[in-house]
């Protein structure tokens, strides 16, 4: 193999790697609640939405969120009450309203008005971007 062939091989492989890597990352990224309008059958999805309303019941270990997408479309999404408390250190309350969250789980489409369907949340996620807006503290 000569010098030129070696560099050419590197170039071709690099292009393939960028394409495959980009595709892999695209599949793993998350979308907006409004994108669920395109989902036609139960699908594992990761979406972000703003908490527009909620209902919490510690006895049945459930918190049901109404999540709003960028275009105003809504979904209802259910999570474990106890897991919520463990993650956030406190019970769900009015303080969660208006917060943007990212949730992962199986989405069951059933369009009624601007409600797109129901989601069974397996993971509740949150980006850490806002954390860096606060001043440093020590302890």
């Amino acid at each position, binding site marked *: 193999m000569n*010098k030129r062939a070696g560099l050419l091989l590197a170039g071709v492989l690099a292009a393939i790697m*960028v394409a495959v890597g980009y595709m892999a990352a695209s599949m*793993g990224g998350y979308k907006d609640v409004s994108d669920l309008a395109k989902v036609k059958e139960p699908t594992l999805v990761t979406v972000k939405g703003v908490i527009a309303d909620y209902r919490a019941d510690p006895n049945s270990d459930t918190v049901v969120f109404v999540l709003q997408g960028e275009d105003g479309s809504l979904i209802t999404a259910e999570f474990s009450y106890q897991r919520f408390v463990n993650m956030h250190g406190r019970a769900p309350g009015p303080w969660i309203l208006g917060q943007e969250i990212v949730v992962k789980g199986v989405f069951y489409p059933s369009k009624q008005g601007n409600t797109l369907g129901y989601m069974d949340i397996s993971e509740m996620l949150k980006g*850490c971007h806002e954390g860096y807006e606060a001043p*440093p503290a*020590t302890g």
Partner: protein
Amino acid sequence: MTSKRALPHIVAFLLLVDAALLYLVDIRGPFPAQVPLGTPTAYRNLYIHVPIAIAGYATFTVALIYALLYLVRGDARYERTAHAAIVVGIIYGAATLVTGSIWARESWGSAWNWDPRETGIFFMWVAYLIYFVLRSSIKDPDVAPRISMSYAVAAYATIPLSFVLPYIMESLHPRVTETKAFVGGGLPAVLFPIRMIIVNVAAILFIFMVRDRVTGQARRVLKAASAILLAAGLLVVTLHVASVASAGEAQLTPGASVKFVGKVAEAQLLEGNNDTAMLLLKIYTDGRAVEVRYVGEPPVKPVTFTQKKGNTTELKVSLVGHVVLVEGVVSPGGMVEARSLKVLNYWGVPANILIYGLSVALTVYLATRPGRSAGG
């Protein structure tokens, strides 16, 4: 030759300074006064995870330069250097994935969720891992170096890709511009760049030591420094376990002494300042809320901070979100009068210090083991 012999001593010195710095990070590393999820102390991983990740990028960049030099000039020394750089990069890449997942578990809510940055780093790591498979599978000694170096150049494409993904896709991972504001002032502005320099300089110098192997007295010095760094990791893990293990359940019987661990859900500064404060806290422990009053030196300083939201400015108490160890007595009304209130580190901070210590120990092992040098 002299400069070559000096490298292990320079790295040994850096590792000793780093052991002290990591201890400082564990007990005093500044964190954001308020975070969206999890305990704020998890953000001490900023001083651990980020320098390791950048060191991984740096070592793979060295690999790219030497692989290109080999492809252009054909000198075997370049191929050996590129190979050693990939060996070091793979170790730092693995440490990046593990330390990042441990941090994400607390601050994102899940250790692994195929976030674009996570996927990008994982893809990069696998791409470089394939390099070793490819290199060892080609039996022809004339062809193997050229093909594997071509592949090493190609694998570098995964580095800019993994870096830009949070900029072009929705991601839970912050961007440089966001973290820059936090590390731009106060103690973070000192601690963060110093660790960044130490970790990166050590990683790059490791490349040449893995390539040439360290022998004699320098070998002993390097191994001792690496052992001290590892010991620092074990020390912070042991201290963490000891602090948590002493706590029990919060039995709210009036007059009873209690010692429990919980998470501060709400906090109110009744009076005081950074020296002495009276705080009223709502702490969640074992799924229930306990009211706690504490008078004394605030465990987190500044005790309060202001936050702008639109046109309004809110005064917030920095203790919210922290996991704390409470020691006190239950009052007749059921409230705990705390005589001691300590902030507990997120377990992932000492764990990640230990993981970094193990990564360095593995790299030092590869740099000091007897036998032929890397790729030789």
